[in-house]
């Protein structure tokens, strides 16, 4: 367990180091001049040069890379070109939207998908099962941004139950803030929950067919007891890996959905920063996203170990 953790962390750090080089290099090949973007069409060359100097863009690559990476380590990768505030503040504020959104979506997906999958598995082969399978097929196929569109039309424009988008900020109170996240989270969660339901059903059906479930029944456990005490935990193992896989999708989905609902999250930030060539922000956000995915992967690995003694003891 400790060893697995240590190995995981080591490979995580290696991943992040390589990622930082790749990302930094990618920024250098982005065409477009940050200064020009900021100052617009009437700017004169000397004005642009002055700005570039102010932004530190005239320094050698290695110096800029080092400044950035060492800044990352201390938690302050630099100052945004356009906003002129520390990148860390900028990101922290945006995470305040993106993380709750992703978490809410994940929670919703789990809360909808898993019970649905269990229900279908418990009644496998019957009408319920087929119904769930068909609904899941539909759910998987729906583009989330399209769903978002329809949701806005229905719940915000027509029924006016929920705000059509935007984010009032947490200081406006948790109520309005959460309300603003409901539609985006639903749009994100529904397709994911369809996947989860499908995986849950299949995994549970597989487990229920295994001998140890029969053994449990032979001990006198009822169907429900066997399902709860023996099948669920085993069925959860594939779910874990699916959750790990879904996370990057969710993240990508968040970026798109934030644009549909004009939520001031990480996704909007990165889009905007790319358009304005706020390189320091772009590279820091990308780095952050890569780190999040890598950390989630590590956590999934550890969760595996927590759930499955075969992995735990072998590691």
């Amino acid at each position: 367990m400790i060893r697995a953790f240590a190995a995981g962390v080591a490979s995580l750090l290696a991943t992040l180091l390589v990622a930082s080089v790749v990302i930094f290099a990618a920024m250098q090949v982005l065409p477009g001049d940050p200064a020009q973007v900021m100052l617009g069409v009437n700017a004169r060359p000397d004005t642009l040069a002055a700005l570039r100097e102010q932004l530190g863009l005239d320094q050698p690559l290695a110096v800029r890379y080092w400044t950035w990476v060492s800044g990352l380590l201390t938690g302050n990768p630099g100052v945004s070109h356009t906003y002129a505030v520390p990148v860390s503040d900028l990101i922290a504020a945006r995470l305040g939207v993106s993380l709750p959104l992703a978490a809410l979506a994940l929670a919703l997906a789990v809360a909808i998908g898993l019970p649905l999958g269990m229900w279908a598995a418990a009644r496998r082969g019957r009408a319920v099962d087929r119904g769930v399978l068909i609904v899941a097929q539909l759910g998987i196929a729906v583009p989330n941004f399209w769903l978002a569109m329809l949701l806005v039309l229905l719940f915000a424009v027509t029924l006016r139950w929920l705000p059509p988008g935007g984010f009032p900020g947490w200081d406006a109170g948790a109520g309005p803030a959460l309300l603003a996240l409901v539609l985006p989270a639903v749009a994100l969660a529904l397709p994911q929950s369809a996947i989860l339901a499908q995986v849950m059903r299949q995994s549970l059906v597989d487990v229920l067919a295994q001998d140890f479930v029969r053994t449990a029944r032979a001990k006198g456990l009822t169907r429900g007891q066997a399902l709860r005490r023996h099948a669920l935990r085993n069925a959860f193992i594939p779910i874990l890996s699916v959750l790990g896989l879904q996370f990057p999708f969710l993240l990508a989905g968040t970026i798109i959905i934030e644009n549909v609902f004009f939520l001031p999250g990480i996704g909007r930030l990165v889009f905007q920063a790319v358009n304005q060539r706020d390189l320091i922000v772009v590279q820091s956000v990308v780095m952050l996203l890569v780190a999040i995915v890598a950390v989630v992967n590590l956590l999934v690995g550890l969760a595996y170990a927590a759930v499955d003694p075969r992995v735990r003891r072998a590691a």
Partner: protein
Amino acid sequence: MTLLTVDNLEVDVAGRPILRGVGFTLTRGETLGIIGRSGSGKSMTALALMRLLPQDGQARGRIVFDGTDLLSLDEAAMCGIRGRRIGVVFQEPQSALNPLMTIGAQVAEGIRQHADVTRREAASLAAETLARAGLDPARVSPDRFPHELSGGQRQRVAIAMTVAMRPDIIIADEPTTALDVTTQARILDLLRTILRDDGPALLLISHDLGVVATMADRIAVMDEGRIVETGPTRGFAGRAHAPQVRTLIAAATLSREIAAPVPPLPEHTPAEHPPLLAAEAVSRRFGLPRAHPLAWRQYRRAVDQVSLSVQAGESVALIGESGSGKTTLASLMLGLQTPDAGRIAYRGQDIAGAGRDVLRRMRADVQAVFQDPYSSLDPRRKAGWIIAEPLHLAGPIAADERDERVAEALREVGLSPDDANKYPHAFSGGQRQRIAMARALVTRPRLVVLDEAVSSLDVVAQARILDLLARLRADHGLAYLFITHDLRVAKAIARRVAVMHDGRIVEEGMTAEVLTDPQHPYTRALLASQPDFSAFAA
């Protein structure tokens, strides 16, 4: 006093009839052995008794247990019967245990299901039962998980799980099939102890006549979903007349029947002629997982300083229990793994440094039949293709000549040349083994390494394969390195045996000598574990 009466039990699964008119009785404290070939419906009978048939299964008839017809009970009442009154030890302890639960918890679960005890009481009762089943808490703690146990230990857990609830009937479905002889003997001992201490009735299911003969008071033989013969064990063989039963009996006593004479070795001494294939003090170790990151890496020596040679025309048996390193040694000798120390010599030449053509000659000369016949056949290739795969070793070959050689090989192993166009899944287990054999023979090798070539087959198929091997040896002067855990088989085929234990060869010598007068205690234990047929045959 009759405890259980099964009357005209019919089971359909997905509309297909599986059991047809099964009927038998079981009295208190009695042991009934059910034998029959694979697929004859033994396990299905057990499941029907427990009312745990597959989802699309349906049972008709009567199963009267202690005065009530189980088929008429509702699910809740049945839950009270299962485990508490009728317990079952399922086939394959590997999959019958929940991999995510400690063994102690799995035993305790059944106890708590039927008795009003605290968690702690159940746990201590479970530990006690495990100890009774031969899992000393000091060595095998109840906190272990199933994957941390050997096959035999898992079987003990499965038995403990059932015994803990002290049921009136224990159904044991193939409790020893996956185990080697010594472990098998110990498990059977355990069952005897439980019968003596708790006195339940036992329904012992096995395809192995030997096992049933040593345990059961009465025997029932199943075939194709019916019971074709029942009677007391004593003198069963003499009384049986159903033809299916006769073949079973014939096969079970095969050691006498196929003891074809082992041909004498051509005159030469190992010094003048280097042996065909030899392992010289080879070792092979596998790294064990570290206990914690800073711990030294521990190794397990799967093969430890082993020397073994096979002369041309000689047949050598390598026996030993599961995990003793037989397969590892074989794959070292085949050059599939490289030894950590020592060398493998083909006609006196180290294969590690040998050139291409030497290896090529060795490949043509030394062929192998692997432990599991099915998994050694590529499921996506037809039998003919599979058999022809090594033919390239003798250089390019024309298509019709190739087909001819394949047909010949097929005929040799007793299959028809038409079988070349079938896929492996279309063959039975015994036939698959023959295909593997045909592939090994098609290059006209000098030596065939056979790893447990017959262990996974039922007795009838075993006998046929052994016959074939004897004939081939006679016809082509083939040498065998025959790996097995079954002494009868070793006796039938080999001139010389080597006994392997814990990665070392503990005893080696002429078959007759070793098996009649074993020197090493392990060999003696091995011999003592052989099932005893005397009561049954008399």
